[in-house]
């Protein structure tokens, strides 16, 4: 069994030169299990025990293999404002082209990310001096690579035991099981969303049909007048469908605008997180659902128009 390393990501440009300082960023923070190296050595247990004052070993992505060499040292600024400080790094390994890692945040969706443009450090400098809670939160996903999958039950048992000793209850799963759970959850989410969506479509349908029928009933006399002066049932039906379309399309536009506004204003910590849900395909789907609502909700009102007997409409005033 090999314990996975933690990875820091540096904001730096592919063309950066080695004597420039880098600002360390913790906006993207990931965990990994295994790297394939082109040159140099992997990170080891001792590397994880170094302090911020020590020279910290680092692996560089293939994209920088012509910029840095094994043994090169550089400084990166860690922390912000008054708390900022420099940490010195030493390149100990160069990652193979196309080396990949697992991402704690999105490994289920985007199974592995290429590391060509990444630097890999054993920890964040801030983390080293940070509070235990921050470290615990950052360590909420830890990947372990087993040399043999038969070891899994044993490892799981050990982790659970250690967790209990520490008063925590970790979930231990293989990635394939996690994938299955994720897929099942996704299916359930889709089913739930569909159920809720269908419920609202049904409510909308009933609402629109009721409003339209009431509107026709309330305007029977006016409809009669129109027919007396030459409008056919077809003309009246077309008018009803036009009115329905106006209601449904206006509602759809307002709904989309409200949803878009809600999404735009959604904040997660200090970052604007956009769900990226508003795509052309979504607009097409909304149009299709709107047309469906118009079509279905037209049927009963149109039937009621067809049932109108002109002789009864204008009698009695």
């Amino acid at each position, binding site marked *: 069994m090999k314990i996975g390393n933690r990875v820091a990501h540096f904001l730096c440009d592919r063309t950066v030169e080695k004597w420039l300082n880098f600002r360390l960023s913790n906006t993207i923070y990931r965990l990994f299990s295994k790297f394939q190296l082109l040159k140099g050595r992997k990170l080891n247990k001792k590397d994880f025990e170094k302090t911020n004052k020590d020279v910290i070993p680092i692996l560089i992505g293939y994209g920088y293999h012509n910029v840095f060499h094994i043994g090169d040292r550089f400084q990166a600024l860690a922390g912000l404002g008054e708390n900022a400080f420099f940490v010195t790094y030493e390149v100990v390994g160069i990652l193979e082209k196309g080396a990949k890692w697992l991402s704690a945040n999105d490994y289920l969706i985007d199974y592995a990310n290429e590391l060509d443009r990444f630097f890999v450090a054993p920890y964040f400098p801030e983390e080293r001096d940070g509070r235990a809670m921050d470290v615990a939160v950052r360590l909420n996903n830890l990947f372990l690579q087993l040399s043999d999958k038969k070891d899994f039950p044993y490892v799981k048992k050990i982790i659970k035991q250690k967790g209990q000793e520490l008063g925590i209850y970790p979930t231990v799963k293989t990635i394939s099981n996690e994938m299955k759970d994720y897929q099942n959850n996704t299916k359930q989410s889709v089913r739930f969303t569909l159920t809720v969506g269908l419920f609202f479509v049904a409510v909308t349908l009933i609402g629109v049909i009721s409003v339209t029928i009431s509107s026709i009933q309330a305007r029977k006399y006016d409809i009669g007048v129109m027919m*007396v*002066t030459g409008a056919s049932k077809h003309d009246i039906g077309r008018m009803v469908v036009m009115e329905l379309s106006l209601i449904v399309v206006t509602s759809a536009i307002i709904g989309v605008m409200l949803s878009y506004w809600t999404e735009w204003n959604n904040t997660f910590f200090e970052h604007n997180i956009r769900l990226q849900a508003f795509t052309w395909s979504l607009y097409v789907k909304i149009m299709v659902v709107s047309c469906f609502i118009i079509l279905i909700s037209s049927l009963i009102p149109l039937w009621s128009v067809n049932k109108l007997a002109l*002789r009864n409409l204008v009698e009695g005033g």
Partner: protein
Amino acid sequence: MFIELQNVTKIYGKDEYATKALNQVSLQIEQGEFIAIMGPSGSGKSTLLNIIGCMDVPTEGVYRLEGKDVTNLNDKQLSDIRNKKLSFIFQHFALMTNFTVFENVELPLLKRNMQKKLRREKVEYYLNKLGIFHLRQKNISKLSGGQKQRVAIARAMVAETDIVLADEPTGSLDRQNGQQVMELLQQMNEEGKCIIVITHDEKIASYANRMIYLSDGCIQLDKRKGVV
């Protein structure tokens, strides 16, 4: 023959609920006639007018308008006839209550693909003719009964159809307004239009040159003025 009904029967309802509103009615009307249809309530007057006005179709028999059998036409064809050949005046005016006077009078022209300018000129001409031009922007709900009936007559005139059907046109009006309405109908008749009026009132019927008396869905009397 302008209007011809042959053995027209109209039955409402089915089986034990069936009611015969018209029974084997045969009638011939020439262009330019002024006809009053009279009879007690339930005698079939309105049913006859509805059939002549293509608002209803006979259960049996044949109805020919300008020589063309309209008995089995579909809704669209009937609506075209209503628009181009027939005009209606009702006791309760049959006006769009949320529309203005102008918009109400304009209604029959909307289906004729007429240019807006031409439509406006035509509507304004008839509004002037009936002395209600000043009311053109007023909402119908703001008008008196007499004014409403004038609007209905203007709408019938603007359509420039050869047949005007009036169902108790003076029923909701006072004597003076009723008289004015009948004078307008008489004027339209003098211009060559065929006027068919349903009425209970002998005085109103006296404006017509032919009187048809209906009872129990049958024509009991068909009398022309001056003919014994």
